[in-house]
């Protein structure tokens, strides 16, 4: 099976190619079969490969397969190599299985759309690129996948490109992540020139030898990597693109902007942890950024009226948890949370999609309500997802992963009490906004009638993801979290979660009027607007970066370079006028000139 590792990314790419070339001529069932089927096959291949890895002797080492070498220049030979180890196996499994479920869901969700084959085409491209990113053993190949997911994310955010806002959102996502990507590319260049290799294993081996702990180079390389991760994972200060990215279809949000792509930054840092261990400053920064992001985004999520935007802020917040974990060196906790988050967040998105599908594309939570009886399937799926998100103790996967992070933040030598406190407050806020959504959407009085019924292709992925959101916490990775000294911490986390849920019940169901009055008061309204608008980052960037830049380009358009360029043009013009005298249009003169010149040259050759 290890020999066929290349099949895992190749299958979605094959699907992409087939759909890109012939998709517009295929019947829709065939498009759906190819689009979802290739990813399904890829999932099977991933499962087989992971089983083979688990059963093999060198499970710790992982399997590496070099397919071919890009170029070979002076000892620098970036290779197309795939690597399957515990980390990439988890990522691969999540990407392919969740991806398959979401694509299955999409076959029904997108059924009425004219860009049906284009959608599956881009989704397959995304899955292929993501798998390339995950399986890459070489940072250059990883970067290729990195840009590939960026591209397909751009294409899918702007999927409904006829509305200008969607296109603008796509462009924003592309440009903002580009800031991070540039940092990443610079980091790659730094590593390649300093260490002479981009193979991840070799980088991990050489970095400690070449650079001392805390040395400037290591800090610079790690900081640049972190920059890339921040952009892709929508962390402070590059988080502004993700809420707008909800302009894309809901399955896109579920797959790309919740489950997989936004966690690429987490994966990158976990992959390069050897490098980050050499830069404690960057580790600290990662933790602080994670903590700040999770609090800030959580408060934003609390005030959103758009269901998908609320989920987007929730995603930023949850990825903030992962960064917090990474920042204190809890790699496996971060990846564990990534996995459970992929399950419950895509479940939430898909359930939200199922709701809005039945409400003719409605996304505003304040226009929903009382859907509990009308949409029982979506309701239960959403409740399970929200429970997992808010880490309902003992029964949900989210509890185990979040509890593990909080425990590590407390106990890790790099951790600190105040980081733990931030995480705990975050957990409270998380539970609050998660069940705020539940109560707003499914309880209270009914505002709109539903229409139609969701089919099996929608309900099965919901059921499967719900099962994973509950059972995903019992994977072998969670072993060892139950230690005696951690009991108080566990109790605290459980308490925070339960308190949040109860608060949500009180504020948004029982005493909803009071909450609305509170929000309506001048101070409350101001705060609410501030939070809902994403803490004013968009405005700040616009004022600090975009507008000065536009002014600068306007100013430089006519001033600086012109005298030089115009001077060149004027000189050329003058010479042209001089030479154009010889252009008489008379063939004989030209021939005469050529002949005279030739004769002169021959004469010089003969007589000199």
């Amino acid at each position, binding site marked *: 099976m290890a020999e066929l590792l290349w099949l895992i990314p190749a299958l979605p790419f094959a699907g992409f190619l087939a759909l890109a070339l012939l998709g517009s001529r295929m019947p829709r069932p065939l498009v759906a079969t190819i689009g979802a089927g290739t990813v399904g096959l890829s999932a099977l291949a991933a499962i087989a490969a992971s089983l083979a890895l688990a059963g093999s002797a060198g499970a710790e080492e992982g399997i590496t397969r070099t397919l071919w070498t890009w170029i070979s220049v002076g000892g620098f030979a970036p290779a197309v190599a795939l690597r399957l180890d515990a980390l990439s196996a988890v990522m691969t499994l999540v990407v392919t299985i969740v991806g398959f479920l979401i694509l299955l869901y999409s076959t029904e969700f997108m059924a009425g759309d004219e860009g049906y084959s284009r959608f599956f085409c881009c989704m397959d491209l995304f899955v292929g690129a993501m798998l390339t990113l995950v399986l890459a053993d070489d940072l250059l190949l990883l970067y290729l996948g990195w840009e590939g997911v960026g591209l397909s994310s751009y294409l899918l955010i702007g999927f409904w490109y006829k509305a200008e806002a969607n296109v603008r959102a796509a462009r924003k996502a592309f440009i903002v992540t580009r800031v991070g990507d540039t940092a990443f590319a610079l980091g790659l260049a730094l590593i390649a020139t300093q260490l002479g290799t981009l193979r991840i294993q070799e980088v991990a081996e050489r970095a400690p030898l070449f650079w001392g702990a805390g040395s400037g180079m290591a800090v610079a390389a790690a900081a640049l990597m972190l920059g890339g991760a921040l952009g892709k994972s929508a962390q402070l200060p590059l988080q502004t693109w993700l809420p707008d990215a909800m302009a894309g279809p809901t399955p896109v949000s579920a797959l790309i902007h919740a489950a997989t792509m936004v966690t690429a930054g987490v994966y990158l840092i976990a992959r390069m942890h050897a490098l980050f261990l050499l830069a404690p400053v960057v580790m600290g920064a990662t933790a602080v950024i994670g903590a700040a992001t999770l609090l800030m985004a959580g408060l934003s999520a609390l005030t959103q009226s758009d269901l998908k935007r609320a989920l987007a802020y929730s995603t930023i917040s949850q990825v903030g948890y992962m960064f917090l974990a990474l920042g204190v060196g809890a790699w496996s906790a971060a990846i564990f949370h990534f996995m459970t988050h992929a399950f419950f967040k895509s479940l939430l998105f898909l359930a939200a999609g199922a709701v809005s599908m039945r409400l003719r594309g409605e996304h505003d939570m304040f226009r929903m309500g009382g859907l509990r009886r009308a949409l029982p399937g979506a309701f239960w799926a959403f409740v399970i997802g929200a429970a997992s998100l808010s880490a309902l103790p003992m029964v949900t996967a989210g509890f185990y992963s979040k509890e593990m992070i909080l425990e590590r933040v407390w106990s890790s030598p790099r951790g600190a009490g105040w980081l733990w406190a931030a995480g705990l407050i975050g957990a409270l806020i998380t539970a609050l906004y998660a069940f705020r959504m539940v109560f707003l959407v499914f309880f209270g009085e009914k505002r709109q009638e539903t229409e139609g019924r969701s089919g099996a292709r929608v309900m099965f992925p919901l059921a499967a993801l719900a099962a994973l959101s509950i059972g995903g916490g019992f994977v072998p990775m969670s072993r060892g979290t139950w230690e005696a000294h951690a009991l108080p911490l566990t109790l605290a986390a459980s308490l925070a979660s339960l308190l949040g849920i109860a608060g949500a019940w009180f504020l948004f169901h029982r005493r909803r009027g009071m909450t609305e009055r509170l929000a309506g008061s001048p101070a409350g309204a101001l705060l609410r607007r501030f939070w809902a608008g994403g803490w004013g980052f968009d405005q700040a960037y616009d004022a600090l970066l975009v507008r000065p830049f536009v002014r600068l380009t306007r100013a430089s358009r006519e001033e600086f370079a012109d005298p030089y360029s115009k001077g060149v043009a004027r000189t050329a013009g003058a010479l042209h006028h001089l030479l154009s005298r010889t252009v008489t249009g008379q063939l004989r003169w030209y021939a*005469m000139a050529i*002949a*005279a010149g030739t*004769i002169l040259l*021959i*004469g010089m050759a*003969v007589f000199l």
Partner: protein
Amino acid sequence: METVFDISAVVAVVATLMVIAQSRAVHALLYLTVSLLAVAVVFFTLGAPFVAALEVIIYAGAIMVLFVFVIMMLNLGAEAARQERRWLTPADWFGPAILGAILLAEMVWVLASPQSAFPAPAANDPRAVGAALFGPYVLVADLAALVLLAGLVGAYHFGRRSAEAGEGEAP
């Protein structure tokens, strides 16, 4: 053989001079054909009968006939010849003649400079030429075929355009 060479060389030079001095295109063409035939004889005396035959078949027999054809199509009459005579003023031909004379002088000067003794030239039978053409020169032969194709396409294109223009002008 040397006598034959000398005679045909003189014929060639005189005929060629007549070509550029003629005012009637057809007469010039006839002189040019004579010149080519004389050069063919020169080839023969140089021991290259194959090339001599080709000179007659292709140069004199095909390329020059094309000229005849075009002149017939243009149907230039006596008026054209008179105009040609008007164009051929001494001022017009004096400069070029000087240039040509200088060129000739230079080349003869080079030829007259002392050279090593010559071996007797060996005759090249067509077989050797063919072997060389399709042996070491096969790529160039293919290129020549391409050039011919390009010429064919080009001639067809220009000819057709003129036909279309003629149709357009007719009404």
